[in-house]
Every structure is written in C-alpha cells, then in structure tokens.
C-alpha cells in the first residue's frame, strides 16, 4: 500500500519572508487614519465571534475590537470565548456543526487543511479591500492551497531566547553578546555555577518542545531541510535529524528536572521567579510579565537562538501568525466577513492597541515608534531572520504533529538515549499515514 506522503499539500511550509519586506511592513507607514473607513461597516445583522482564549490580556484586546466594531457599524456581536485547548481539540466538530461566524485561529497548514475541507469562507474580496495594509508575505501566509485567501492576520510573535537582563548582568554577560552555541554554553555554565537552572523547559502539553526542535533543526541543518522534513521529503531517520538531538542532549544537564510536569506557563514562572536563566518561547507572554509588574516587564529581553552551523547562521525563526477566519457553517457569513474586514483594517487594530496590552500586529499601519524596548527587540530579532516558519504543529500534517510527534518528543525527555528508536518510529508512522 503506497501512500504519497510527499503530498502534504502544505506544499512549501514556511515562507521565505523577504527581510526588507518585513521591515517595511513593520516599520509603520504613518497616517493610519488615511485608510479608508469603508473597510468594514455594512449593515449585516447580528453575528457571533469565537475567541480561542479566556486569558485576561488577550480577552481585553479582543473585547475592545468587538466593541469598536459594534460602535462603528451598529451590528451586534456575541462574544463567545473558549479555553484554548478545548477549542483546538474540538475545532473539527465546531466547524462542521454550529460555528461562530468569525473566529480566532492560526496560520499555516492548520488553516489550509480546514480550507481544503470547505469549512472556511473565502476571504479574497476582503483582502482586495485591506490587502495593501499587509506585506506580501502575510498574504502568502493567509492563502489556502487553492490560491484563495482564508485568513486575516492579527499578530505574530517570534520564538526566541528570553532572559532577564538583571540575571545576565549579575553574571557579567551582555545578552547581545551571546551569538553562537559556545557563548550560550558559557552562559548556561554561569547559571549552573550559581545553582540556577540554565534553560527552562516545559513539555507537559506535548507541543512546547516542538519549538526547540524546530530551531535546532533549522540552525543545524538549515531552513530547506526543515521544510522538507515537515513535508516528508526528508527522513526522520536521516543522520542530520539525529544531530538535532545530539545538541539537544547537551542542554539536558542545564534543564529543570520536571520538564514533563510543567506546561509553558510553568517554564515562564521559572523565569519570572528568577530561578532559571533562559527560556525558548514565543514572546506572547510579555503581557503576563507586565501583569506581574512593570519592572519585571522591563527586565525581559529576547535574542535569536544562537548560531550553531556557520553555514546557516541565524537565518530562520519560528514566528507563528495568529489571526481570524470565517466559518462556512456559521449563520451569518457576510457578517463574519464584514467583521474580519474591520479586524484586519487599521481601525480594528488600533482598537486593540489602545488597550495598552502589548501586541505586535501584522498590519503595516502599526506605529512602531510607540513600541517599547521589548517589542522593538522582537522586531530586531525577526529582522535578522531571512526565513520564517510557523511552528511544527502548524507546518506539518495535524494528524502527525499532535498525536505522533508530540508524544515522541515527550518520550525522548523520558529517555534521551532512545533517540534512534524514536526516530525510526517517527519515520515509520509518517509512512503509515493515510493518503490525504
């Protein structure tokens, strides 16, 4: 029984984001108000919006968006929030059953898959209206496999090495001075000598460690190999993939013991409580540090993951894009589209920014001169990267990422020596996946 695994129709996962484009996109074109107010604002009746979070800061932003839309158009929006994991676990049922008209989702194959199944509304005409507010690469990220757009970007965040400036200062290390693996190891040794955890890691949810895998793979073997591996064109049993785990194992002595007992917020706590030196994570949690105190937020810093292979430098970064989609089975498709047109327009973005919660918008109109130091640094980290990937569980087949890669990485933490067995199993399970 042959299956054409290479038919992962997310054909080229990851996008070659032109560095200049991204900088232009983010550098802020002044005059947000000049953009047409015709974007979003028709009389389309009541609609519903599904949020993928129940957390305080993001909810504040989303509710502000909804309120601004209601104020502008007079359409009532019912705000339905679901906890993130419950939402993701039920997405398939949700979209087939009685979904909200617009909902919060993620870019990547995760979105393209559902578009393929006919569960998302074609948003090409919305893009015609607001497309000029986004750089080309975001449009690519929002495009389904059939060439039409199904996604409106909202925000993005880079996955990078986060520190507390104060902790590094105590060691006498300048964060921007950590460029390559040796520098990084030196920092970890410094932390360990002070009795601290060098590298805070979490993987209770099964997905957190994928970020580490992604970046190690991209650093050691390059962007193209990573993309090919995600698409099944390269093998997990390849010696290059095994290299990733060799380097990963070097980090294990500097990690906390309870990796499988902590979810991502546990690792964040280690950083927040100054018990750990570094954490590889997406920058979304800035809001959490800010909730704790302004001083904590100002102490937070990010740099790209260190270079390992000089051939690839630090040219790749995981920068998942979060955004919105409209559901085909929703009761009010036009309402959903109208809302998304508003959400994607600078007016909607501004409503979210006005809440004061830090957000790195995908919209060109965000005035980056108002960015604080941490946000500016995130931009700088992104700027250094030539290639952007979306994160493993958005870049490869969902029936492979969650049920198979997740447990495999967890079992590696349980016993790092089993790496060859694990890689062989990964490859054979990939081969056994049903044809798409």
């Amino acid at each position: 029984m042959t299956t054409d695994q290479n038919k992962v129709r997310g054909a080229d996962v990851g996008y070659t984001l032109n560095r200049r484009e991204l900088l232009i996109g983010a550098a802020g074109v002044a005059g947000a108000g000049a953009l047409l107010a015709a974007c979003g604002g028709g009389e389309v009746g009541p609609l519903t919006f599904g949020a993928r979070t129940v957390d305080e800061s993001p909810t504040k932003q989303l509710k502000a968006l909804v309120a601004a839309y209601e104020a502008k158009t007079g359409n009532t929006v019912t705000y339905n929030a679901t906890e993130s994991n419950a939402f993701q676990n039920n997405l398939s049922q949700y979209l087939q059953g009685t979904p909200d008209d617009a909902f919060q989702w993620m870019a990547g194959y995760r979105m393209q898959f559902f578009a393929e199944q006919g569960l998302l509304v074609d948003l090409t005409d919305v893009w015609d209206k607001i497309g000029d507010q986004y750089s080309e690469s975001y449009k690519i990220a929002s495009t389904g496999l059939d060439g039409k757009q199904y996604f409106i970007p909202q925000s993005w965040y880079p996955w990078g090495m986060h520190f507390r400036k104060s902790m590094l200062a105590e060691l006498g290390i300048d964060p921007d001075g950590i460029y390559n693996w040796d520098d990084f190891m030196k920092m970890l040794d410094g932390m360990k000598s002070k009795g601290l955890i060098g590298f805070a890691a979490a993987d209770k949810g099964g997905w957190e460690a994928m970020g580490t895998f992604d970046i190690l793979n991209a650093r050691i073997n390059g962007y193209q190999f990573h993309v090919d591996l995600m698409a099944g064109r390269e093998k997990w049993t390849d010696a290059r993939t095994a290299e990733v785990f060799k380097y990963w194992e070097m980090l294990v002595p500097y990690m906390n013991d309870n990796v499988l007992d902590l979810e991502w917020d546990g690792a964040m706590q280690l950083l927040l409580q100054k018990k750990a030196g570094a954490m590889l994570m997406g920058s979304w949690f800035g809001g959490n540090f800010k909730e704790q105190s302004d001083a904590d937020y100002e102490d937070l810093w990010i740099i790209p993951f260190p270079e390992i292979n000089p051939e690839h430098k630090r040219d790749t970064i995981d920068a998942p894009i979060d955004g919105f989609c409209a559901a085909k089975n929703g009761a009010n498709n036009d309402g959903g589209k109208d809302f998304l047109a508003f959400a994607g327009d600078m007016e909607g973005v501004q409503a979210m920014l006005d809440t004061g919660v830090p957000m790195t918008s995908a919209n060109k109109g965000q005035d980056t001169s108002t960015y604080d130091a941490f946000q500016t640094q995130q931009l700088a980290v992104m700027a250094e990267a030539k290639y952007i990937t979306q994160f493993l569980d958005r870049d490869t087949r969902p029936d492979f990422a969650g049920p198979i890669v997740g447990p495999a990485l967890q079992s590696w933490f349980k016993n790092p020596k089993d790496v060859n067995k694990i890689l062989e199993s990964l490859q054979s399970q990939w081969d056994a996946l049903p044809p798409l």
Partner: protein
Amino acid sequence: MSVVARGRKQEVKDRVISAFIGVFALLWLFPILWTLWSSFRPYSEIRARGTFSLPERFGLFNYADAIDRMELPTYLWNSALITVPAVFLTLLFGSLIAFVVSRYSFKFNVGMLLLFTAGNLLPAQLVFIPVFRMYLSIGDLVGNRRFLFDSPWGVVLIHVAFQMGFATFVLSSYMKTIPKEISESALVDGASVFRHYRSVMLPLLRPPLASLAVLMTTWIYNDFFWALVLMSTDRKRPITSALGRLTGEYVTDYNLLAAGAMIAALPTLIVFFVLRRQFVSGLTLGSTKG
C-alpha cells in the same frame, strides 16, 4: 443489624479496625479540606509568603470573584437544564422497561435486559463520532442545526440512552422482590397495563427511585465528556466545563480555582448530604437468595 457481642477479642479487633478506618477516612477527606482552606486565601499571598504561611487575608473574596468571572448562575442553570430532564427521563424509561420485563413474561425479556445492561457498559468514545453526525443530520432535517447539536437536549438524550441500562437493572432487581400477588390482583381487577404500571407498581418503587435519582444526578451532573464534544458554545455548557474556563490559558490563580471548584461541587454535595440515609437503603443490587 448490630455487631453481635462476640467477646473481648473481637471487640478489641473492632476498635483497632475502627481506628484504622478512621485514620484513613481523615486522610481521605484531607485533599478536599485543603482545597477548601485554600479557597479562602488569596493566591498573591500564597505566592508571596508560601503555602504554609498563616493567613493574613481570609474570607470569601475568591468566591465572589469566581462567581463574577465564572458567570456561575448561567452555568449552574445549564447544568440543571441537562441534569433534571436527563434524570427524570432515565428513571422513567428505566422503570418502563423494568416493569414490562419483570411483570410480564415475554420472550424478548431476557434479550432486552441484556441489551440495556451491555449498552451501559460500552465506552462512550466508541459512539461519539456517529452520534455527532447524527445530531447534525437530524438538525438539518428539522431545519435547525442546533436542534440536537450544541443544545442541552442533545446531551440529555445521550445521557438517557447510556444510563437507562443501570436504572433498568436496579429497578428490575427491586421489582423481583415485590410479590407477584400484587400484580395478579391488579389484573384480576381488570387493570390496564397502564394502570398496572402507574397506580400499582410505581408507588412501590419509591425507595429505588430515590436512590437512583441521587446516583444519576451525581453521574450526569458530573459528566463533562458529552457536553465537551456535543456542544460548541462554551456558554451553554454545564458547570464542569466552566472550570475549564477558569483554568484559562495562561497563569492560573489556584486559590480562585479552588473556590470555583467548591461552588461547582456544591449541588451534588447538597443532594448527597440531604439524602444520604435513603441512599443506600433504597439501592438493591442483584437478587440474593436469602
């Protein structure tokens, strides 16, 4: 039936046994008590001063906060909306089947009993995808997708379908202990099947019905699997799902969560506490040849 006085040796043994069980009973209750204790303290204090610190602030503020953030009245109402009809229908249908099967001799009696009790033991995960699609299809047929899916009635029905078996089993076991003469005299009086059920048997079923009501209420109220997969609007789900909302995506305030959990547990605790005497006494399992 009290312990027959068996002499000192047994009495001493009994004291030891009682003490042993007693110690464990306290250990059993400890986790709940600890959670209760924590619910009265603010998380910020625990974080700042440690888990075992003496409380500075102590009170019901977490509860007020939980009620506010959790939109508790809505969720408790959702739970009631599902639990009450489900328990009622389960007991009703269970009693109907048990009645026919134990008071009349039909060839299909044994088969029916087997069907229902086996059905009760099937794992829920075995059926949920087809049920999900069935609900949507029926919804489309009736013109309202939310007829069964994302509706409390859909959840009620699946609970009834699964729990009927247990109710049937308990009620038929109990009915076997009711003398046949009762039914015979009713039939002699020319009672219809309906009257036989309603006026003759049903009043006699009070004890097992009461116990089953307590058990079923607990089970159905506490379930969250079906509401999780057969409803998509979080605001319509029962309270067990609301706890998922509080747990949230990011940083968790565990003391607040404790308060929410205590509130969610309250209805079943009240039911259990009020009816605990009737509970075991009304439950009949199997028929023991005495």
